[in-house]
């Protein structure tokens, strides 16, 4: 009797948990679902709030073949990807220095780097715009990648720094005595240990860079166009092609979703480890 009660209780608990999670998932995913639905609607049916409509691929054809969407897609990929690679190449040594060495104003430097994240992008955009105009970096890959470091670098530095601080310095010393050069020590003993954090922070940095809107809006013109800016173009002055905007957005989230699914395991572990222990 008692046993039954308990099983019934745990069954109810599991049921309740799942119902809550499903409700939350619907709530969180609804904008995405709505976006995907919109991408299959024609402009005429766009404003019907019922779910019954005739699916059409018209929007996809218009966006993918009618415009230079793919060009923007690959340019976005290039800008974000290179920005993240540079962030990792430069940010990991910075994180190492901040974790290991003792120098004057160390915490101030670390905090300044973090504070780049606090400032709204629009705040720095105009001065950067003026400077870029002067030195000829406006509307170039280099300029955009450079300014993206503001978005990507602080995250990687702070997460990876926490990881380095958790690694006992004696491990490096042991490897030194075992006959390894500094770069071998770095690659063979340190990189495997910071990998979860690096992967998670790198991916988040990529997503932030990929989604960034303000910087490319102001700092790029026709030459370099990211996907976030391109999506805007389907809002014409007379009509708004919501279907086409939806298509552009749907395809834009695909890389993020795919990468996230692949490294989901690292993502959760990587960010929680550093945060809790660091």
């Amino acid at each position, binding site marked *: 009797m008692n046993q039954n009660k308990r099983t019934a209780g745990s069954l109810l608990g599991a049921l309740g948990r799942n119902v809550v999670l499903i409700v939350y998932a619907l709530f969180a995913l609804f904008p995405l679902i709505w976006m995907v639905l919109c991408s299959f609607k024609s402009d005429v049916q766009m404003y019907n709030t019922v779910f019954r409509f005739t699916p059409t691929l018209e929007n996809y054809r218009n966006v993918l073949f009618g415009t230079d969407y793919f060009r923007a897609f690959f340019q976005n990929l290039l800008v974000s990807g290179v920005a993240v690679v540079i962030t990792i190449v430069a940010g990991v040594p910075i994180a190492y220095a901040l974790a290991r060495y003792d120098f004057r104003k160390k915490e101030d430097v670390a905090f300044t780097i973090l504070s780049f994240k606090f400032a709204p992008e629009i705040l720095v955009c105009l001065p950067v715009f003026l400077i870029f105009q002067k030195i000829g970096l406006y509307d170039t890959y280099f300029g955009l990648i450079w300014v993206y470091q503001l978005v990507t670098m602080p995250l990687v530095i702070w997460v990876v720094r926490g990881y380095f601080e958790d690694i*006992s310095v*004696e*491990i490096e*010393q*042991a*490897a*030194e*005595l*075992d*006959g*390894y*050069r500094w770069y*071998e020590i770095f690659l063979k*003993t340190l990189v*495997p*240990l910071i990998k979860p954090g690096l992967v998670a922070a790198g991916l988040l940095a990529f997503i932030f860079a990929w989604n960034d809107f303000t910087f490319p809006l102001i700092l790029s013109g026709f030459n370099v166009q990211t996907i976030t800016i391109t999506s805007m173009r389907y809002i014409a002055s007379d009509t708004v092609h919501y279907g086409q905007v939806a298509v552009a957005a749907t395809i834009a989230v695909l890389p993020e979703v795919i990468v996230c699914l692949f490294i989901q395991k690292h993502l959760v572990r990587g960010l929680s480890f550093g945060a809790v222990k660091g």
Partner: protein
Amino acid sequence: MAQIELENITKRYGEKTALDHISLCVRDNEFFVLFGPAGAGKTTLLKTIAGIEFPQEGLVKINGKTVNQVEPMNRNVSMVFENYALYPQLSVYDNIAFPMRSRLYKKDEAYIKSAVDRVTKMLNISNLLDRRPVQLSNGQRQRVAIGRCLVREPNVFLMDEPLAHLDAKLRHFMREELKEMQSSFNTTTIYVTHDYMEAMSLADRIAVLNNGKFEQTGTAHEMYYEPANEFVAKLFGEPEINLFPAEPYEEDGVLKLRAFSKDTSLIPRGDVSAALRENGGKTVDVGIRGADIDFSFENRGDGWVRGSVYACEPIGNKVIVTVTVAETQVRVVAPNSTKAELDSDIYLRFHTEDLLYFDEMTKESIGRSGGKRPAEKTKQAEGVVETWHS
């Protein structure tokens, strides 16, 4: 396979001086133990030899060559770290094989396998080869760390408390193994410990380090019987040496000592009288080991001191009886069968030939019955050693 010399090494961390003008010579094939309390600078000294800490002053020499400017990897030293410093991402096998896979100490995989087998058998961890360090207990981790140190054939083994986290039985076993291994490998070993039994059983020579300075350097025997000062005397031996003040006085031309609220006289052996007189008749501290005290529950008359039993601790092979004599506590080692009622009367007799005398102010040794001053003897016997005293 190498002689290690330190000349006037000074290492500071900011304001704090970790090593204060340390000079030391560890001979080829010697098992040298650095002994001292926590924070004495033992680990810093090891790391200075390894090259992972840099002294502000002084020279480090391996085989007569100054290596201050030599990278740690090129010094060919092998070290056991106190916190193990195992590579968490590698299995036990790979951890132990790691030094033999570096470009500098490259060996082929067949050799690596046999070498790893050899040390893991000796350390009794051959069943753990596939595990990661996180899946091991502290004692097992420590053995893996020892294994990683022993697979190599370095100039010198540096061991930083390698047995500290093993259980008592295993520690005893490993102590014998290390001693055996050292004599068969013919390798210089510098070994850090804070366990005096480990120090005494393993060492060819011991250096006692305190606050970044050597208190004394010598054999285990010298440390125990001829400590240079009270600090060293207290470090060696369990129970701790008994120390009490005594006031010298002359009676019929014989130097005697008055101790325990002046109602007890001790007559030092003739050969230390001169040293005590030289000291100017000042009050001295007398030291005696618990095993050098006779005890009786009946008053046997002259030369016996009355006290009362304060505590009685059986520790397996002996009983330690703490006796209160005129407000001073004296620990006496008694046979296992001893049963003493608390607060009952007990009579003690000190073996006057085993008394140690220390200056009351400086705590330095004045002498010992039937022996020379320890510091002199150390220098004579160990001609190479130059212990630096400030």
